[in-house]
């Protein structure tokens, strides 16, 4: 099937799909269309929601129409969505691996066929991109880890992981902004808040941001002050 595909989603939204399987290229296009439209928000558009390989456009159908927006999207796509976004921010985020903060580290290293230390090294040397936020407030999906991380999701549901948990599967890292249930394996925890309604910015991360985790000890984690982390240029 040919991509991109544009479909109505209800009577007040539409979906621009760039692929039906996971790909960083499709993710880059979804984020690029999000940037193009955000920079010059078409009349009647209420909200843009980029995800792994698609962009949802919510609009007021009494102020604009699906057909008008379809044309605007097609023009933007024809104009080219290639090229890395230059303004992406990069954050170096401290993380504790293993122990109580990463109860599934050994199991994950086993599945990868490497030692715990090798898994930590591999995880923390990769600069990841925020591919989307979803599922729960401030919960980001980061990717991609190397092929060795192409492990399945866990087989049981963990009723609650803490905010900042590093959850891995399918070469991705799920990085929750608040405690939540998950079926993914937890290999570590970043002692930082990516979501805090009492803070400005409320959401530390946006789709397209880059992030690299830096291993720290449990002892050192107690002294992490993330108040400057999200505003500092790195």
């Amino acid at each position, binding site marked *: 099937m040919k991509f991109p595909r544009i479909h109505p989603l209800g009577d007040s939204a539409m979906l621009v799909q760039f692929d039906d399987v*996971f790909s960083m290229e499709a993710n880059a296009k979804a984020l690029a269309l999000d940037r193009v439209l955000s920079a010059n928000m078409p009349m009647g558009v209420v*909200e843009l929601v980029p*995800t*792994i390989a698609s962009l*949802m456009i919510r609009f007021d159908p009494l102020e604009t*129409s699906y057909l008008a927006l379809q044309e605007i999207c097609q023009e933007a796509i024809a104009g080219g969505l290639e090229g890395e976004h230059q303004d992406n921010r990069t954050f170096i985020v401290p993380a504790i691996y293993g122990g109580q903060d990463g109860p599934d580290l050994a199991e994950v290293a086993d599945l990868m066929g490497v030692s715990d230390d090798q898994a930590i090294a591999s995880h923390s040397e990769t600069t990841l991109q925020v591919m989307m936020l979803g599922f729960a*407030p401030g919960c980001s999906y980061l990717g991609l880890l190397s092929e060795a991380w192409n492990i399945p999701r866990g087989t049981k549901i963990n009723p609650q992981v803490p905010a900042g948990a590093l959850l891995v599967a399918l070469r991705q890292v799920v990085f929750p902004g608040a405690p939540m249930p998950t079926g993914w394996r937890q290999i570590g925890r970043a002692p930082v808040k990516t979501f805090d*309604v009492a803070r400005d910015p409320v959401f530390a991360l946006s789709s397209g941001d880059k992030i690299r985790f830096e291993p720290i000890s449990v002892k050192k984690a107690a002294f992490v002050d993330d108040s400057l982390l999200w505003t500092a240029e790195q």
Partner: protein
Amino acid sequence: MSGLKVVKFYPGTTIQDQGRLGFQRFGVTAGGAIDRYALAQGQALLGNNADVAAVEFAGAGGVFQAVGDLWLATSGAEMPALVDDRPIAWRRSFYVRDGQRVELGAAKGGVYSYLHIAGGFQTEISLGSRSNFGRGGMAAQLETGLILGAAEGLTANQRTLPARSYFDRRNVYFVKGPQTDLFPQKILDRFQAEEFTVTASRDRMGMRLEPEGGLLTFAGGLSTLSEACVVGDIQLAGDGRPAILLADRQPTGGYPRIGTVISAHLAAVAQMPVGHKFGFEFVSQEKAVGELKKWRDEIAGLPGKVQNLVRDPAEIADLLAYSLVDGVIRGDEDENS
């Protein structure tokens, strides 16, 4: 501070306004009152702005006590309502004096009911909305003893709105979406031909439906990449029971959607009681937008439909204690009341 003190409430009771828009890209669902028509009825009765907050009940009422003199109104699924021990008709605005108790019983006919206050409840704002979103810990939730603050110095009138029944819709319109054509034709045919029953498996996130003609299962199944969800999405996962996503839906999801309920039917769908049977009817985008326009016009016209209550003094039990005080001595009622 004047306001309404929470004496007793049941699970599912929340504070809701129009919800928070613009944060779905950060994983925050819009939420907001599940029945926007009922929300608008309350605003019309009290002359409130459209964006103020009300208390939303999910089937069970509660007990409240006035702190200061207040103007309140009720809307949505009808509940028995008492001020102290005096019954108050549903879908009207009324005056309560400091210390009086307001008691609401079980909802009839529909599911969601609303209690409004002049100027809206002044509860905590989180990301631009007072709507509670429990799982996200957003905006102060109800708790016993909490005073839901009232705006100061607002008055209203004793008014009522004619009933408009939309809780018993038998044909729900839906439009096709990105995954509709991925379903086997036999499933699509059955989806449009058969009846569905509303099950007890429902909350503000969504409602699960029981297909009358057996489970809508099919070989292979479908899985999709995680995509943004909208209110009204009809997900059909492997268990063969469709689920309609409602106000507190997940912001993103990977279950295939057979279609999406049109915006103009969302309030009716949310209000369908357990056991209600209905069918899905495919409509075009044009029809869906036309229905939305009619629906919005009807909501915009609500203030014009509000009627001042004309009451026979002989029927008013507590004339001296109640009516003279708020009706005559206040002296700020409409001239034709």
